[in-house]
């Protein structure tokens, strides 16, 4: 049902709920046989900016039998109105309640949105637990980075799509539509879905635990259900589906601009980084494809800013050709280009003069660790001289501000490494005064320090996170090391990082905690104003869950990990090798320099950096 205007007048930013934006279209209900609603377990401003959701919605809407609408989590003021007036959570386009759709798809981007997902199911009148759903309820599917360890939310989702969803989601929709037309039961439909490559149906697998809480066995209940779920990829990024339209929100969103991928994966493989592995093998779009897509989107949206997105844009093999071909038409049209994720070792004066984001007053880098030793442990492959050179170029180009990203609590970290962080910041300040052609004024270095969260499918997946006390102690230690007023020091909440760590490597037993958290009204954990650590402590206490078992325990190398049944390409033996190298302070070469043997080439891929797949020209 449509939200009455009287309610829209009462809530903050009603534009989150009204739809009607340029580019929002919806097929008539009776023109399709399968209706999907794509849910994003965070608010409109975050969800509308998600590239994956945009691609997948477009794929579904291009299927003639299928329509795909959208829904976001309400902000608590709207949630209160919905609950008070007994209004179910509805899609934006048709204003139909979630439970009237055939399929409800969730994009799970980060662990802190699990509780929001559960809350949205409830608000949409869908039974929260998969086992309680009836033939009249939608099939709940989910994908995104968190689906790579689906176990903590396995009880709430009927089917997970593992990997890149472009082809996978179309196959799911086709299979579902076919099952629906044949009158299959829910159970039959899920069984058939399990035969699609990349699909994981939790209800078709059994888990047994050892007395110590670790996994004893994990496997499918039936022979026709795959033992290993293999990640899907788009082999050829030039051929993959990509929307040439985009909804243009009225209200300001996180990415109110065109975001365009230049490729997927990262040749670097920092040992803490999950994203690099999830999107391997590294594949690129050609400059011509990117330019064509960018032009189409600029024409359609009227945005005057384009972000070229990639895990490490400076590693794009034809960066100069790409920027030249872009500037040829963006300059006359006064469209600016952003290049985030620049590496310090690739920062040049030429690039700085060309690109808008680089022209802004701040230069941003991620040294991650304070000493070369620790940077080698995490395989950051960046040297101090690169950082200083980049700073000099920036200073000479008129910048005075540098932003540095660090991580604390990394494996093998000592207080010397923490000293190194503060010291590096200070020396970057000093460098300003050593630079002859520096601008007038005083320099400023902003340090932003995150807490290390061990993630599945990384070399550090067996590591313990520092205890909450240690994390906090280290944060204050670094603070006290900083003496200059020209250094601004920010650090992430250790409590939030701990909750993230618990769920990142969680198993099915954690669904109990999520349910309990939901009962206590927890949701929107990603928002500081709603994150409540004390309430989470109560949750774990009342459900008998030991958070340290998940966050602070070193895993044995032979332990069955909850995500072991997923094959992401990069192999366990590669991660183990990387872990050993880390403890020897040894770095590993990038894909551009030679093969480190991650084995992601088993998945195939075209126009890739992988030395084992087709060689780049």
């Amino acid at each position: 049902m449509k939200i009455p205007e009287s309610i829209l007048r009462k809530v903050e930013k009603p534009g989150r709920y009204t739809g009607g934006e340029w580019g929002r279209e919806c097929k008539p209900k009776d023109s399709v046989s399968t209706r999907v609603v794509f849910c994003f377990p965070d608010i409109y401003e975050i969800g509308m900016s998600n590239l994956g959701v945009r691609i997948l919605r477009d794929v579904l809407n291009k299927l003639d039998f299928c329509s795909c609408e959208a829904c976001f989590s309400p902000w608590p003021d709207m949630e209160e109105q919905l609950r008070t007036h007994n209004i179910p959570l509805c899609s934006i386009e048709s204003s139909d309640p979630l439970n009237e759709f055939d399929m409800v798809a969730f994009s799970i981007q980060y662990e802190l949105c699990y509780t929001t997902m559960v809350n949205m199911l409830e608000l949409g009148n869908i039974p929260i637990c998969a086992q309680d759903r009836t033939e009249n309820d939608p099939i709940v599917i989910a994908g995104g980075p968190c689906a790579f360890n689906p176990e903590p939310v396995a009880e709430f989702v009927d089917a997970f799509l593992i990997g890149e969803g472009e082809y996978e989601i179309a196959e799911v929709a086709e299979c579902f539509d076919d099952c629906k037309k044949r009158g299959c039961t829910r159970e039959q439909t899920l069984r058939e879905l399990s035969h699609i490559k990349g699909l994981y149906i939790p209800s078709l697998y059994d888990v047994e635990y050892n007395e110590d809480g670790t996994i004893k066995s994990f496997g499918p209940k039936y022979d026709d259900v795959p033992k290993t779920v293999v990640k899907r990829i788009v082999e050829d990024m030039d051929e993959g589906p990509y929307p040439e339209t985009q909804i243009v929100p009225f209200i300001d969103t996180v990415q109110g601009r065109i975001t365009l991928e230049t490729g997927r994966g990262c040749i670097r493989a920092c040992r803490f980084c999950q994203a690099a592995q999830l999107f391997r093998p590294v594949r690129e779009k050609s400059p011509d494809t990117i330019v064509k897509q960018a032009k189409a989107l600029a024409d359609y949206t009227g945005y005057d800013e384009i972000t070229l997105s990639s895990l490490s844009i400076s590693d794009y093999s034809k960066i100069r050709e790409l920027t030249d071909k872009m500037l040829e038409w963006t300059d006359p049209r006064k469209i600016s280009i952003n290049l985030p994720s620049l590496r310090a070792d690739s920062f040049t004066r030429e690039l700085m003069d060309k690109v808008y984001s680089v022209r802004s007053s701040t230069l941003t880098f991620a040294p991650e660790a304070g000493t070369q030793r620790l940077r080698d442990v995490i395989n950051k492959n960046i040297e101090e001289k690169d950082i200083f050179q980049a700073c000099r170029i920036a200073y000479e180009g008129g910048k005075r501000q540098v932003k540095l990203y660090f991580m604390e609590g990394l494996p093998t970290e000592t207080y010397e490494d923490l000293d190194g962080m503060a010291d590096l910041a200070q020396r970057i300040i000093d460098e300003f005064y050593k630079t002859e052609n520096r601008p007038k004024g005083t320099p400023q270095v902003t340090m932003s320090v995150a807490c290390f969260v061990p993630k599945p499918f990384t070399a550090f997946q067996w590591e313990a996170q520092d205890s909450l006390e240690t994390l906090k102690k280290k944060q204050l230690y670094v603070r006290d090391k900083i003496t200059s007023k020209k250094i601004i020091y920010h650090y992430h909440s250790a409590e939030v990082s701990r909750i993230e760590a618990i769920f990142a490597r969680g198993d099915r037993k954690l669904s109990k905690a999520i349910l309990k958290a939901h009962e206590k009204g927890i949701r929107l954990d990603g928002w500081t104003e709603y994150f409540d650590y004390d309430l989470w402590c109560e949750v774990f206490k009342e459900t008998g869950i030991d958070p340290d078992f998940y966050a602070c325990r070193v895993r044995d190398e032979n332990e069955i990990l909850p995500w072991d049944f997923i094959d992401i390409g990069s192999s366990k033996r590669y991660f183990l090798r990387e872990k050993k190298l880390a403890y020897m302070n040894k770095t590993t070469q990038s894909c551009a320099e030679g093969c480190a043997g991650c084995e992601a080439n088993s998945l195939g891929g075209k126009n890739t950096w992988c030395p084992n797949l087709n060689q780049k020209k």
Partner: protein
Amino acid sequence: MVSEFEPKKIRVRYSKSGSLMFISHLDLNRTMTASFLRSRLPIYYSQGFNPHPKIVFSQPLPVGVSSECEYMDFSVTEDIPFEKITETMNSVMPQGIRFLDCYEPIGKFKDIMWAEYEYVFDIEPSEELIEKIRSSLSGSVVVDKKTKSGVKTIDISPLMDVLSVSENDGKTSVRLLLCCDELNFVGPNIPIKYLMDTVTELVDIEYTIRRKRVLLSDKKTDFR
């Protein structure tokens, strides 16, 4: 590229309804900028580090109010027929916003002194209700008005004319003329609050507000 053409000023009257009713003035600005860029019309850009289409809006409309008489000025750098601008823009703007009329500006935005609003309450107007509303709005109308220096209690009756209280399609319609001179501005939500406070039948009734016309100081001449 040197253009001989002196940028030409254009004024547009446009409507704002549907979803557009619920977006702020800042969001409207963003929406307009993007629409101009989509249109590829030769719009005059502000000069400087971060060039943008140069747009000037008349008085902002409060969130939750629809309108058929919003005004906006911009310039074009080529001679282009007014109808062509209207047609092109209407093909690239979201549903809730329509260009109604493009022309060469006559007055200045600060000449706008009065605005006519229609309030429609989702309730059948009995004679008793109509009478109640009329009497509530006659005589002095004392309201709290937020100003920069705090909340002030003022009588808005000199700044307001009641044009009609009547039935409109089974609903209750109230048409008011409110002053929108910068110093004596009466926002369209002020009478709503007053009516809800004084006429019990209207409490919690769904309503809409629509700006119908904007007028010069004589209360008769439409702004152009």
